[in-house]
């Protein structure tokens, strides 16, 4: 079930403790919240997910926020969103309290996150899962396709 928080709010004024157990992912670039959920594989699950889009933010002007109930996301899982939301912060909530807060980090490799832009790549057919090695972890990022071995700049990434 997905509910959307419609009202734009001032930073900090929306309630992190609106969920009892789960994860809050904050500082997602605006309009990317649904993509973040898709990358995390949460779009198909039955957990309660609260999606906030286009909140005003001091740091980013606008941002998206997602809250996922009754689900703990490991660092490996949340690092998968670093390519689309490099400044995202992750808060793990237990009993309405933040028990862990972390930033996402660019991992060495990502699977099923970005699609290979090379039209002749084998991953364009055969139902092959995409697989990239991040060869440059500072902005702008660069990633090498595990299969066609081509290196792509961040601006070419296809989510």
């Amino acid at each position: 079930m997905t509910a959307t928080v419609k009202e734009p709010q001032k930073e900090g004024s929306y309630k992190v403790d609106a969920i009892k157990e789960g994860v809050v992912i904050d500082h997602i670039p605006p309009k990317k919240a649904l993509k973040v959920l898709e990358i995390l594989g949460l779009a198909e699950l039955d957990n309660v997910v609260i999606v906030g889009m286009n909140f005003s933010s001091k740091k980013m002007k606008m941002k998206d926020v997602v809250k996922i109930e009754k689900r703990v996301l490991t660092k490996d899982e949340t690092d998968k969103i670093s390519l689309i939301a490099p400044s995202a912060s992750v808060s793990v909530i237990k009993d309405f309290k933040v028990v862990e807060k972390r930033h996402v980090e660019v991992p060495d490799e990502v699977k099923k996150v970005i699609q290979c832009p090379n039209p002749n790549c084998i991953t364009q057919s055969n139902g092959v899962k995409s697989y990239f090695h991040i060869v440059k972890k500072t902005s702008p990022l660069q990633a090498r396709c595990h299969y066609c071995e081509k290196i792509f700049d961040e601006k070419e990434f296809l989510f």
Partner: protein
Amino acid sequence: MNNNLFISLSVPLIFNMHFKDRDLISINDLSKEEILFLLDQAKKVEAFSHAKRFGLLQGKIMASLFFEPSTRTRLSFSSSMEGLGGRVIGFDDEKTTSVKKGESLFDTIKMVEQYADVIVMRHPRDGAARLAAEASSKPIINAGDGANQHPTQTLLDLFSILKTQGKLEGLNIAMVGDLKYGRTVHSLAMALSHFDCNLFFVAPPMLRMPKQYLDELRRKGMTVSEHEKMEDVLGKVDVLYMTRIQQERFPDPADYEKVKHVYRLTRKGLTNVKPNLKIMHPLPRINEISTLVDETPYAYYFQQAGNGIPVRQALILQIMGVQL
């Protein structure tokens, strides 16, 4: 006329290299030591008599899966395997197989691995061999995946350079022609980055070596320079690696017309060259090397193709766990 001198490698060789049951998908999967080891093994195989070679892989079967036609590569692999006493099964063109009927690459490999000890494959898509290797319990040798890799070509190019020049370090090597789309020159340049060579890239502006490779080579400390005219480098180089300019690579036929005859090596053009110069070419050529050049001592492209046999035999033997 041929330079039969083959100076021993000056690096200490590690004889416990583990190639048994390994795939060879990309030249980038091999370390410098592994490359030198394979070249040394090729040199050993080359010294064996045909009779001795023929006893090495009796009863072994190689599957040769050519999802797109490539007569030269297929013949070289088949000849290599049969020369070792092994047998070859497979297909030359996917049109004649169930692959065209929609059978997935995965399913094809899962079937073929039941029949063969080693699988050689060529496929039009980039990355197909890597994917096949994930599916297969039998070792896969990539004989070309789209525009990506053709590692045995790179090994035989290195073997040809080593054999004719006696070393891989400190050479002046020019690559000429289509450096933008040319898979062989990309792989060869990257492989040469293990060795301290000067690379001269000669191409029309439209077909320059992609920045990705130039950056990577410079990052590895290589001396590389770019040129438009072959004449600018001819007098300096030990190896002239020519490539053909392929029409099918050009989205716009007008662009092809502009560059198709831009490089043409003639006998007359070879008057002021180094005596040890060798001209190489992955073949087939179109018209970039005049047939009159064939008779000069610099022409090496046919011997280069022949070097594919000991190189591929050495690789197959290593993968099958045969120590020489």
